[in-house]
């Protein structure tokens, strides 16, 4: 694909904490209209990479671009193009769902009518209308997760980055999110999501990146990963063979 088509782009991205390298020389692209799955074991560097892309962490070295804007040099433009759903849906506890969406709309500079229309649409879409006037401290985890996703979509971003988006959601909501992400990609947005559910990655994502110990060890379509995975056919087997988890699987077998 041509480089100009990439809405998320990382080049030799590094994040270090003292001597510890959390992310080590990670380079990949997510093109317009593409859903990119970001996989890796716990502590591999997924969330750190995502946080650098959305501007929550400053890279120690390398470049991250969102919507063509460098997140360090043009942070406001990059952030304006991006919607982010964190792994933990920490929301302002004393704001209602409706107030929260309007607050986010204001932050992203939407005009008043647009902001009101979008927030009502999203509340309806995510089935939050009944609880829209309740403060979010009374929401269940799933409701918070949906509110968080709605907040990321208020400004209709060209890039959507999600960290474990389906965690804690019921099957209906998880399906809704998958449909929304697909629709967004079909409309030309770039979607990047990290997940532990390999089935989601296999079925939803156009391309998949696997990160282990801070390094991107593989990236490509399922077919490209199969070639890398020495003939393994399922994403689970490929993932385990690439990240060294196959030995763990054997131990688990012994414990049965």
């Amino acid at each position, binding site marked *: 694909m041509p480089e100009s088509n990439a809405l998320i782009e990382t080049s030799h991205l590094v994040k270090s*904490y003292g001597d510890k390298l959390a992310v080590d020389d990670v380079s990949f692209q997510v093109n317009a209209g593409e859903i990119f799955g970001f996989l890796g074991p716990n502590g591999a560097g997924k969330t750190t990479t995502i946080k650098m892309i*959305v*501007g*929550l*962490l*400053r890279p120690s070295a390398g470049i991250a671009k969102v919507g063509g804007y460098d997140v360090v040099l043009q*942070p*406001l*433009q990059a*952030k*304006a193009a*991006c919607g*982010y759903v*964190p792994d*933990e849906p*920490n*929301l*302002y*506890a*004393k*704001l*209602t769902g*409706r*107030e929260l969406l*309007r*607050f*986010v709309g*204001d*932050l*992203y*500079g*939407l005009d*008043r009518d647009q902001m009101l229309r979008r927030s009502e649409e999203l509340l309806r879409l995510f089935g939050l209308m009944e*609880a*829209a*006037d*309740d*403060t979010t*401290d*009374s929401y*269940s985890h799933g409701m918070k997760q949906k509110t968080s996703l709605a*907040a990321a979509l208020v400004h209709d971003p060209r890039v959507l980055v999600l960290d474990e988006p389906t965690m804690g959601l019921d099957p209906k909501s998880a399906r809704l999110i998958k449909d929304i992400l697909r629709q967004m990609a079909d409309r030309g947005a770039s979607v990047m999501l990290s997940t532990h559910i390999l089935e989601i990655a296999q079925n939803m994502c156009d391309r998949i990146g696997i990160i282990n110990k801070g390094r991107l060890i593989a990236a490509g379509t399922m077919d490209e990963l199969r070639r890398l995975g020495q003939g393994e056919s399922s994403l689970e087997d490929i993932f385990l063979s690439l990240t060294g988890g196959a030995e763990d699987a054997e131990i688990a077998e012994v*414990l049965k």
Partner: protein
Amino acid sequence: MTAGSMTFHEPGLWVSVWRLLRLRLVIQVNGFRRAKTGRKIGYLFAALGILFFLGFILFLSVSLLTLLRSPDLSRYIGNTTPFLEGIPTMLVSVAALGILFTSFGLLLQALYLAGDMDFLMSAPLPVRAVFISKLVQALLPNFSIMCLFALPILFGLGISGHYHFLYYPFVVMVLALISLTAAALASLMVMVAARFVPARRLAEVLGFIVGTFFFIFSQSARFVNFDVNEQQMTSMLKMTGRFNQPWSPLAWTGQGLVALGKSDWAHAAGLLTATLIATGLVFTVSLWVSERLYYTGWSNLQNNRRRPKGKPAARVGEAAREKVQNPFTRLIPPPIRAILVKDLLVYRRDLRNISRLLTPLILGVVYAVNLLRSGGQGLEGRGEAPAWFMSSVNSLMVFGDVALALFLGWMLVANLAGVSFSQEGKNYWMLKAAPVSSRQLLTAKFLVGYLPSLLLCAVYLMILQILKGATLFSAIVSLLAVGMILAGLTGIYLAFGTRGAKFDWENPSQTNRAVGCLGMLVGTLFLAICFGLFIVPPLIAGWLGLPTEAGQLVGLLLGGIASAGAVLLPLGLVEKRVALLNEA
């Protein structure tokens, strides 16, 4: 693994209690072991200090109580024996009531809001063991504080009265029993309350009520007359007798201890056995009922859908939004306006924040009453000080209302601007991921700290000025001075609060440390210097025979320059830091 190797042996109640308490002990010991050397030394000094304090109170008690027993003193103030023998009952009663009320909040935290309850309740442990261990954990801090005062006095009573040696272990045992029973009753109260009000809301309301009550209580001491005459002293001494009601198990306890001390075995055995039965009964029943009520409160906590009463919250928010979207505030860019509206809504809805704002307001009212009671007049003195000195002091007194408004504003700004960033807590990601520049963020947070403080102080100052009968010119100058100084203070506290911002707090009170000692010091220094810049020129103008108004205008100019510097310089210095906030 085979099923046989995983055979489960049901643990007994007390074995489980011991396991849970041992776990807590291990956590404490680990905390001490891993602490920095300086902190360890601090702990050791604290322990030595406590021992010294115990010894001092014991010495004082023995001396005083021996004096009260002396026949010479009895000849003057009458028979002191009823008072002395009423001390154990009084202390036990006060301890029981104190533990009952202070344990409520601790138990609410330990039983409903602590993160480990899910784990403990799903573990194969008797539920009763979990409750007992939680009771002990919640009880220990208050019990220790109570022992710090009650034990030396009770031991002092024993030493001064040459009580039997069995009195001493029984004192400790009885205090522990009474405290445990009071805590069990408190747990029952928690369960009943959590049945009707979600635990988190209950904690907020409780924090607000307790904080406000204690503050008002402490401030009311200013209006109390402490001159006590002989008659009042005698009636105070007789107060111990009021605790000695024959129907009260707490009185049986106190009387039982005294009987034991005096080797009156029959009375001691009867009264202490009655105490044991009564406390055991209350403890068991409370625990039994609590166990049955616990799950209702727990499910209430999980499903605490709550809508603010009256107008729906969204309409309240909409009203707030409309207020700040009038033509004047439309000048404020949308992101700044959004943060302003959000912060004011969040601040208003969290009772814990309101209680922090109430403190300055109560203080403001208390000091205003004091100022107005004195008529706002200058000092007369005894005629020993030079005339110029008295004239200066009296000129300063004229600015008393401005000083009070600044004092109120100082506390408000420290509470609003100092914690402005920290208050975001774990939600800060929303601001950080949004296209809002550091300057916009600082501006928004500045307005969040400044506008409410200015509004409250302006109203406060205007009321004082009207009551004082000040001229319009003086009122305007005072208002401008307060407005400018508060702006400078907001800049300083916001800058220090940004430097020390903490986002990982669980309780809003933990955000108070953000400004730090240095920040408080710099802010206070600025307040004093800037206040001086405003008031010294009018004083000099007075001495030189020039119009005071000219001096006031010069003061406004000098103070205004200093205030502008205090806004721009510190905020300019931390602007770059804002972009890096919350990056470990």
